[in-house]
Every structure is written in C-alpha cells, then in structure tokens.
C-alpha cells in the first residue's frame, strides 16, 4: 500500500546487487565505467545526506548510547557518573512512585486511546458524507490537534476544569456535585483523557482518507441485500478500513505512552495532586531535572523504550487476526 522512497543512488546500488544475485557468481559484472559512475553517485548521495547523518550521530545516536551507559550509573549532573550496574532498575521496581507512574500511564493509554479513536472514527464518518459546509467542519474538527500539544491549550483546560469553573458549574446545573476535576485525585486523569480525546484531528483525517477508499458498490450491494446501518458498519466499513485503523491504533498508542506536556501543565507543574497524573515521563523528568538523578531517569527512559517496543510488537502480531488487506496489497 505504501511506497518506500529511496534516493536514486541507493536504488541503483540495490539494482546492481539484485542483478549480481540473479546472474550468480561469474555472471555479467557491470562495466568499470558504470562502477565509477555509481561510486560518484554514492559519494554525492552521502554528501547530500551528511548534514542529516551528522545530526543523527551527534544529536540522536550519540546521546542515546550515552544515556544507555548512564542508565547503569549514578549520575547527579555534577560529579562523574559512577557505575552501579542494575541498581537503577532494581530501585525502580521497589519505588512506589515509579509503580504509580506505570499505573497512571497504562490507565491513560488503555482508556484514552480507544475513546480518542472512536471519536475520530465517528466524526470522520459524519464528515465523509457530502453536505453543506463540509470543508469548514473538517477544518474545525482538525484545528484542536494543531494547537492541542501547546502549553496554552493545557492552561485553558486547567481553567475549564477547575473548582467553580465552567465544567463544575455545568455539572451543578444537572445536580452533580463533584467539584472541580483538577484538584480531585480521582477525577483529574479524566480531565487529561478529555484533553487527548479533544485532539482527535490527526487520526480523523487518516480515517477520512480510509473511508473514501471503500468502494460504494459494496454498500449498494449490501443495501440491496437488506443490511442495516450497523451491519454495514461492522461488515463493510470496519474490515475495509482495518489497515487504516491498525495504523491509527499503533500511532496513537505510542503517542499516548509519551504524554508529558499536558499532564505537567494541567497539574500545575507537579504531576499531582496525590500523584494522580504522575505519568511516566513526568516522573522521569522530575527524577532527572529536579532530583538530579540522571542515571535513574535514563534507566526509566530505556525501560519505556522497551515497553513501547513490546506493545508495538504485540500489535503487529495481533494484526494477522483482524487487519484485512486487499488481495495483492500485502
């Protein structure tokens, strides 16, 4: 379904290899002139890529390797790192706040992601139909995800859900007296989930694209056979868009694991009250930059990477059971 874009230089090299493979050893080797030209192209390719390669080495790969090393050390930013082996990891499992952060994050991912995707799909289905002002609605529903990650949105959210603010007052009209959500350890996580659901724009656009691909004839045929809207949804729409759904589930799950900004700001830079919004990255940040335990923070970071990797692997494994690709699409 998707095409992998490669630079011409890489493609040419790949072609050569496949030619050599086909012909086997002793097959027609490319003429020397072509070899030279290929090498020249390769050099040019690498030259053009060099800013990216340098950036990757110094800004991504280097720090990652260093942080992997740090995860086995005690490092307070000021004194040289001291090797302590697996101590950070054993400390982590013994730390009740770390366990709380795992609990909060899992809860957030498990509850928030499905609701967000359901909202995105529902709105995408509404917007897929032709109606007046369609492009305005599409833009309006997409807008929150553009500003959603920003600090200002989180601040507004905090204001909406505080004690005696609009949400609290509306609740009271309906006779629900819970008070504001922000200071209530049992409720604040739902304020965060509401914030993430509100930002469903990106998956919605992808769903829209998926819905447009479903052939009309299928619906027409089903209608003729007397299938109702629910049947059509479960037997045509869902299976037909399952590759898109899989893509969205994967992306949103990974994204949810990394929640930081909104949790940090909605809870007033404290990941609280009572650690109710102590998401994993929030605790990682606190350990690293407030408590100066960079070794511990690095260890937490690597564990998160492994956990997200595992969840991704499980999702990929499960797709065989529920994702339907068109024939030849796999």
């Amino acid at each position: 379904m998707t095409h992998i874009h490669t630079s011409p230089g890489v493609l040419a090299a790949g072609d050569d290899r496949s030619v050599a493979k086909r012909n086997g050893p002793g097959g027609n080797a490319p003429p020397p002139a072509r070899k030279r030209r290929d090498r020249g192209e390769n050099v040019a390719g690498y030259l053009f890529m060099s800013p990216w390669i340098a950036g990757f080495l110094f800004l991504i790969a280097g720090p990652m390797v260093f942080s992997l090393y740090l995860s086995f050390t005690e490092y307070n930013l000021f004194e040289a790192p001291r090797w302590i082996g697996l101590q950070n990891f054993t400390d982590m499992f013994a730390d009740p706040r770390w366990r709380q952060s795992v609990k909060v994050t899992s809860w957030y991912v498990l509850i928030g992601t499905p609701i967000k995707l359901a909202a995105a799909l529902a709105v995408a289905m509404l917007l897929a139909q032709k109606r007046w002002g369609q492009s305005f609605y599409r833009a309006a529903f997409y807008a929150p995800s553009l500003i959603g990650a920003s600090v200002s949105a989180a601040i507004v959210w905090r204001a909406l859900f505080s004690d005696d603010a609009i949400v609290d007052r509306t609740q009271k009209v309906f006779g629900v007296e819970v008070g504001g959500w922000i200071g209530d350890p049992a409720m604040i996580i739902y304020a965060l989930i509401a914030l993430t659901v509100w930002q469903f724009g990106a998956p919605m656009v992808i769903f829209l694209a998926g819905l447009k691909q479903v052939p009309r004839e299928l619906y027409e045929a089903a209608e003729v056979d007397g299938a109702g809207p629910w049947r059509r949804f479960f037997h045509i729409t869902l299976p037909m868009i399952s590759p898109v759904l899989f893509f969205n589930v994967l992306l949103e799950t990974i994204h949810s694991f990394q929640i930081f900004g909104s949790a940090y700001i909605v809870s007033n830079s404290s990941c609280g009250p009572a650690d109710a919004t102590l998401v994993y990255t929030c605790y990682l940040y606190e350990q690293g930059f407030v408590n100066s335990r960079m070794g511990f923070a690095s260890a937490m970071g690597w564990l998160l990477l492994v956990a997200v990797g595992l969840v991704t692997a499980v999702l990929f494994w499960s797709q065989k059971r529920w994702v339907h690709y068109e024939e030849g699409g796999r």
Partner: protein
Amino acid sequence: MSRNNGMDRRQLLKLAGLSAAGLGLTAAGCGSGSGGSGGPVTIRHSWWGADDRAKKVQQCVTLFEKKHPKIKVKTDFQQYADFWKKFNTQAAGGNPPDVIQNAVTFLRKYEAKNVLLDLGPQAEKGNLDLGGFRSGLEKFAEIDGKLLGVPVGSNSMALVIDEKVYEKAGIAPEIGWTWDDWLAGLEKIKSGQKIAGDAGPHGVMYLYDLILRQNGKAFFTEDGMGFGEDELLPYWTEALERVKSGLYADPNKVEQLKPASATAKGLSAGEFTWDNFSVRYSAEGRSSYGLAPIPSTDGKKTGQYLGSLMLSGTARTKHPAEVATFISFMTHDPEVARIMGYDRGVPATTAQFGAYQPSDAPSKAIGAYETAIADAGVLEPITPHPAGADVIEAAFLRIGADLSLGKSSPEESVKQFFSEAKTALGSN
C-alpha cells in the same frame, strides 16, 4: 547567467578562500574588542519570582548600569521550581549565570559540587562591602570558611491571618501564645463561621522545623535528618484527623487554587508561611490580612530564626570582581531598597533598611513583625541544611498533601517520606 563565464573554477575557489579569510579577520576583530581592556563586561543575573519582582530588579539593574557604565547585566527569571531546573542544567553544562538569587536550602548542595563562588577574597579586595549588615546576617551563608552568598533581605516564619475572621471570632494572637491557644481558636472559627481555621500546615517543612526546634531538635543536622519516624507519625496522624474534622481546609480545593493561597481565597482563616509573602495576600484576596506570631509549647521558645534570600556568584564566572561589585550594589545601595521594598524580605543592611520607609499596610506589618520578634528575643541561629534539603522539602510538601487527600495512611506517608529523604541525601 553568463556573468560567470569568464571565471573558472580556480578563480571561484580563490574568491571563496578570500571571503573566508575576511570572515576570520572580522571574527578576530570582534574577539579582541570584547575581551580586551576598556570594553564593557557583561554578567548574567537570574532569579526566581513573579513579574512584579522582575520589573523591580530590572529597574535596579538599569540604575546599576548607569553608575557602573563598564558593566552590563543581562537578566533572566523563572518561577521558583523552574528556576532550579534550569539552573541545574546550566550549571551541569558549565554555563551557569554569573549571579543568582539563592536560599539556604541550596548552599551545601552546590558547595559540594563546587558551583558557588567564594566571595571572601572579593570582600578582602574591597569589591564587596560586608559592613552594615543587620544582626550578623553577613555570616549567613558562610560554610566551612567560604562565603557563598550575601543576604539581600531577611524574613521569618509567621502565621498569616484573615484579620476579619479572627476579629469576628474574638481571637487576638500575641507573642507568647501556645499551640493550645491556636487550636482553641481554630475550633472557635470553625464552629462560629463555618470556615477552616488553617489551610493545613502539615506539609510546610519550615514550620515543622520550628516545632522540632521548640522541642530541642531540628529538621536537619549537617548531613542528615534531625528527627525520626516516631516524631513525624503522631504529627501527621493528628493532621489527618484535623482535615477530616474540617479544622484544616478541604485539601481538594486547596490543591486547585494553587498557586493562589487558600487563606486569600477565603478557604481558611490562616496559614503558616514566610512573613514577606503576606504582601501578595491583599492583592489576591478581598479581606485584610495580618501577621500573627508563631505559637509555642511553653509560651517562650518559638524556634524562629531569620531566613533569607541571598545573592550568590557562580564559580565559573570569568568576572568575579564585577560579580562582587553588582552584589555589593544590590545589598547596600539605598536606591535599590526604595525600588525593591520588602519584596525579598526586610533589607539586610542598615543602609537599605533605613532608606525604605514602607507606606503600604502589609509592608508596615512585616517591618513591625520583624521588630517585634527581634525585641522579644525569640530569634536563634539557623540550623544547617544538608545537600539534598531542597528535594526533601519538596517531598515533605507532596507527601503531606497526599496524606491529607486520603491517598495514603499516616504510617505509609511517614515511611515513604523517610525513604525518599534517604535517597535524596544519598544522591546529592
């Protein structure tokens, strides 16, 4: 397109080389300009606080630059918590600001890591004036013979009260009142006016320090904790009961109001905090707010001391003399006192103390309060804060809040606090 025709590759290269050399020359020229004698020196100063303080500091800096045209000061500020996060990162990266606002909780932490500048030699050279400090405050930041900071103001713990509520309840706190008197007052306020008597003091480390000091102990020793689980457990058990009975304010609501204060928002009749914080209450709330003395067990010993904000230099600075000149100016210049007022506490030097006569009621009250406790003779020397004290203070506050929100039992809270304190002391 055809302009390049007459130029071959070599000529192009030459041209490129020349322009590169030209760039190099200009760069060299710049270098000699800023590094040589005669040019202005730039130092960086950062502090924590709100916009209001930022405006005042900026005014002082403008004045300083006028009086010392060869020194430029670049300023930067954050909220308290964010300030230290940023400073940690800057200091670890070897690029800390030259002058920072500082507090006693951080002295040993950064001394152990060689982050702070010893201002002693600068005082000897005459760049820093150590004369005229009130009640021995100049020794405030001296650790192991090194002078790690100079106080700009002094403050002390107090009980900020909503005067209207206290008046209506017929309570007039005076120096010498006891914890029993205070508690009886809370009961009276709760039953008479249906509001909590206190915002909930159990997470305030500095107040618990005073309570310990009243009993001959202290929160910290030089390198560890000055009290044990047996002492904290009854204190927190009692606190939880008072939250449940409504003597202390509803913690859910207190949390949501932050950073506004519970007392200013009418949730409670009072709260323990630093006396100079009282300035903000009248801005935030609708009542009138006053300062009451710290209660004691025996009616005499309150355990109080003068705390202080200070200015410190950082060890990596390339301009220690200019740093000292700036700190000296900020602590002694009478104009600075007139600009800053009691924003950072009552000015630490006699010159500044005399220069500023407060005209607003909250500032007058702060001045009167500090004079009263000094006259009453309750002030004692401050106890040391070990490296890691800042992390422990934050843990005390957080775990105290968790406790009152009913998230953990007093036993669990106490265990959790000491476990985190141990980690903080070990890793700092």
